[in-house]
């Protein structure tokens, strides 16, 4: 019993320490001191400043850029990754599978900054052929994000394909489907959960990315994370509206994640009670 209490206290203390700074920032978004070292009464000035202040245009442009990049990169990654998974699953040659496996690992294993530098060099070389100015530069960032998102799509879709029975596809063809029809009506619906999971992971990875975006985007165009960095790395204290922005982002992410996770864990419980103990526990790992 004593052990249990000690364990719970330990977990609680670490958890509290992990969340303290975040709570701190949220609390201090409701006061208008320029530095967060003193409380000067309740105020929503930071939020007013965020929506109407001089920086609000830049902030909303950055948010739009972030979303454009996330949606485009995730869409491309999902298509590329799903196609690749279908292809790899039907290729018999072990050598080709091995080559894809190794190459797919590279962006996941490599240090972010290495990927960032290498892509920056590539885009630098391409610049002597095509010069991308202004918002068009986002294409570079979309391509860069696609490189690190696609591996995760592939790894989400491939297990689904391997679980599904190839005979169903063949049966569809025997019953008169063309390969394209069989793909759309049989294969894709079967692996849909993996595709959706891959897409969601890509969106979160893309929105969260800072290092690679910082290296592949310049010239006064910002995403949310590079904007935060540009405001935070200077000698001046952080503008108060950024505090409000951070607080809002924290709350949105926390709410979303809690919702998704509690939902998926209750779904899993339902599944387990429905199917009983037939399935091996290994499969319900994720």
């Amino acid at each position, binding site marked *: 019993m004593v052990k249990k209490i000690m364990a719970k206290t*330990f*977990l609680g203390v670490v958890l509290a320490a*992990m*969340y303290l*700074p*975040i709570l701190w*920032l949220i609390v*201090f978004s409701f006061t208008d001191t320029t*530095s967060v*070292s003193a409380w000067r009464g309740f105020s929503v000035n930071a939020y007013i400043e965020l929506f109407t202040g001089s920086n609000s245009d830049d902030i909303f442009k950055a948010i739009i850029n972030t979303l454009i990049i996330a949606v485009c990169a995730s869409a491309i990654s999902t298509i*590329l*990754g799903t196609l*690749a998974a279908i*292809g*790899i*699953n*039907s*290729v018999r040659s072990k050598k*080709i*599978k091995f080559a*894809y*496996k190794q*190459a*797919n690992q*590279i962006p996941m*294993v*490599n*240090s*972010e*900054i*290495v990927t960032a*530098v290498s*892509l920056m*060099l*590539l885009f*630098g*070389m391409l610049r002597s052929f095509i010069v991308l100015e202004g918002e068009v530069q986002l294409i570079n960032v979309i*391509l860069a994000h696609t*490189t690190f998102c*696609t591996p995760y799509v592939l*790894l989400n879709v491939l297990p689904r394909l391997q679980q599904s029975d190839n005979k169903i*596809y*063949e049966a569809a*063809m025997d019953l008169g489907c063309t390969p394209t029809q069989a793909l759309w009506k049989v294969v894709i619906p079967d692996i849909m959960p993996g595709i959706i999971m891959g897409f969601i992971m890509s969106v*979160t990875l893309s929105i*969260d990315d*800072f*290092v690679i975006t*910082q290296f592949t985007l310049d010239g006064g165009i910002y995403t949310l*994370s590079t904007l*935060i960095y540009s405001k*935070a*790395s200077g000698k001046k204290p952080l503008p108060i509206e*950024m505090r409000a922005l*951070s607080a809002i982002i*924290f709350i949105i*992410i*926390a709410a979303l*994640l809690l919702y998704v996770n509690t939902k998926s*864990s209750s779904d899993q419980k339902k599944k387990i009670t429905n199917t009983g103990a037939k399935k091996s526990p290994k499969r319900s790992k994720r």
Partner: protein
Amino acid sequence: MKKQTSKFAGFTRKYAAIPYGVFMAVFVIFPLIVLLLYSFCEKSVDGSLSFKFTFDNFKSVFSEDNFSMLINSLLVGLYTTGICLLIGYPIAYLLANKNYNRSAVLVMLFMLPMWVNFLLRTLATKAMLEFFGITMGMGTVIFGMVYNFLPFMIMPIYTTIQKIDYSLIEGAADLGASARVTFWKVTVPLSLPGVLSGITMVFTPTITTFAISKMLSNSKISLIGDYIEQQVKILNYNVASAISFVIILIVGISMIVLNKYDKDNANQGGGLW
């Protein structure tokens, strides 16, 4: 007849992987080749590839000017990894142990900070440290790194401990081992793969991430990541490439070591492909 259709089907589906293959060749393999070329070439005025072979980039990476940067990186990396392991292992153990925790939400609460942008987390840490009047320096950098990377240590250890067959632990108890002996002789050795992957997931990002050290030391302490950023800013792509190449080597070696220990995982991966 049936054989023919399936052969035809395999034929078309096989081509589905080609776009991604081409994409990887252009955006993954080729950039790394360019990086390698840059690291062995002389610097040119406008930052383009000069094709003049030299070792100077590596020499300047390991020159005396960078001595404190390299030592700082190593120290911050080692301290952060060590502290993360000391705090993270007990947490992972408790979370995976059914006697102490049965809730998935609690596990999630420990992983949740991972999904919040690290710049925001670092900003929050900085704000709090400033409130308490703590001077920015090595200590605060290590604190911020631990704060940022702790979930990356907890996660792999938690998954390996969870996978341990509980009957092994019961067996050890049945055969007369005390709880402590069971822990050190059964749980710890079986969780080593998780520990190793936790160490790599903390150590390399710690020394290569830029921004955190800068923000939490008021630009006093710069690590490898900050150095790369600084070199890129002054268009010295060659030195930036050289040090990136060194990072690739470090990561590669640790991956090889990890794969040797983590046979279980390797088998799983083999099954997937």
